[in-house]
């Protein structure tokens, strides 16, 4: 465990060095992300101008869901998304062979070897928005609700990791993964909206099959005190199950890997 922690710190340090070497990239990416976020904020604002009650949510709760989506998305991009996405390149060039010779888990190396600290910094405006949203329903906040929110955000991250691991495993079967990753990115973006806006069967699919509801809407509902214990339990069981399935699939897919260089 200590080894993995030290490696994580090393990988993060490498990420910061990369940022320091390319300051222009850093500032451009950061400004671009903030502009994109601002545009979407204007979009949410426009929607609530048309409909002050949007699927039973008001503007502040809409912002809370948007913030939660960004929270999970940014943390996943900071730590593991890039590494798993770029597995395609390692496999194509045959450099994944080297990862298999290291005395650590190949999945750990693949996922965490290239963290993106630039994303981490874009958390600042997200946290500011979260602070604003929290002041809007301060009377609803209890220590238990805050604890549940943090637990379910971590749960959402675990689901995101499981989904990304599952997709990365497909790289061992096909080289046409670019479109699939983009599908994942757009599918996660659906989570910016409450799942309640979707009609059956889309609502069920987006809650439990591609579990965006569990990942993003559930933490917000827990914070507002409108999520039952059964759903909290269901969310935890689902993430554990998805994590187990993703790991098993990764191991199965890894056995199918044949080096491109040999």
């Amino acid at each position, binding site marked *: 465990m200590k080894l993995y922690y030290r490696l994580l710190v090393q990988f993060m340090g490498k990420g910061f060095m990369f940022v320091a070497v390319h300051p222009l990239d850093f500032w451009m990416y950061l400004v671009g992300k903030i*502009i994109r976020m601002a545009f979407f904020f204007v979009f949410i604002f426009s929607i609530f101008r048309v409909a002050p009650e949007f699927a039973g949510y008001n503007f502040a709760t809409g912002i809370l869901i948007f913030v939660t989506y960004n929270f999970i998305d940014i943390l996943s991009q900071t730590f593991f998304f890039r590494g798993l996405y770029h597995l395609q390149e390692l496999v194509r060039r045959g450099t994944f062979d080297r990862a298999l010779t290291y005395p650590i888990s190949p999945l750990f190396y693949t996922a965490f070897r290239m963290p993106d600290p630039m994303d981490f910094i874009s958390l600042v405006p997200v946290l500011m928005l979260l602070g604003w949203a929290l002041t809007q329903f301060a009377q609803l906040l209890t220590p238990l609700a805050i604890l549940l929110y943090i637990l379910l955000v971590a749960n959402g991250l675990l689901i995101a990791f499981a989904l990304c691991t599952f997709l990365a495993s497909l790289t061992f079967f096909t080289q046409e993964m670019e479109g699939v990753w983009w599908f994942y990115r757009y599918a996660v973006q659906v989570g910016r*909206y409450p799942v309640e806006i979707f*009609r059956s069967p889309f609502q069920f699919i987006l809650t439990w099959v591609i579990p965006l509801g569990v990942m993003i809407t559930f933490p917000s509902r827990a914070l507002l005190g409108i999520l039952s214990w059964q759903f909290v339990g269901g969310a935890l069981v689902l993430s554990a199950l998805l994590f187990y399935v993703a790991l098993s699939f990764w191991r199965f897919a890894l056995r199918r890997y044949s080096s491109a260089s040999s």
Partner: protein
Amino acid sequence: MRKYWFIFKMELTQLMELRLDFWVKWLTSLLIVIMNYFVWTTAFASGKSFGGYALESIVAYFITTSFLYNVILIHRQELISRDIVEGGLSTLLVRPLSYPLQIFCRAMVSRIVYTAIGAVLIYIVSLFIIQFPMPAPQNIALGILAILFATILYTCFDFSLGILSFWLARSNGPRWIFSTIGMLASGIMFPIDLLPSWLEKILFATPFPYIIYFPASVVVGHFDSTSLTQGMLAGFFWSVVLIILTATAWRRGIRTFDGSGI
């Protein structure tokens, strides 16, 4: 001309090779259309119209933008940038072919194929998933002209971002921020006339609205005769300006190219 026809056929073969990528791309577009449909159906639940849009026209707008996104926004900037940075351009320059024409020709293959598939998919969606008014034939005819200008504008924009690598060895950051601003300002996320009027005025002073917003508005019939004439003239004006600017930048850039990697 035969040389370019040969490139056209080669690109078509390559596109058909990557079938999974191709279909997943369309699945992603379908997902975006469904997402937008539910977002706006929920927003319009109270029966109000918004900024001159009724529910049907906003749904038609988003379906059209999804189609135009796949047809107009064919990105080649990364390929161009790689050719310049890795020196592949040296080989391509000694061939008896114009490099910009080659890039344009290859992008046109994707555009033609995506137009055909997109039209069929839109018809299927309108029959089985989302009911929306099909555009009038005269709007389609006018829309084709607007799409032609949009294609020229986006090709120049994309090509200019690609050749930034003549001056910047690592142009990812600047390319990313310009692409992000360009995409957001083109009306993909929501119709530009729904934005605050000061922001709308700023955006209309740039070529971006003529890439997606204007052609989409023409196809769905959200225009009057004055705005149509103004839009067409602006599209023509910006096309001429961007062709001149891009050609100048290409000529200057090629003089700075040192063919690293030979």
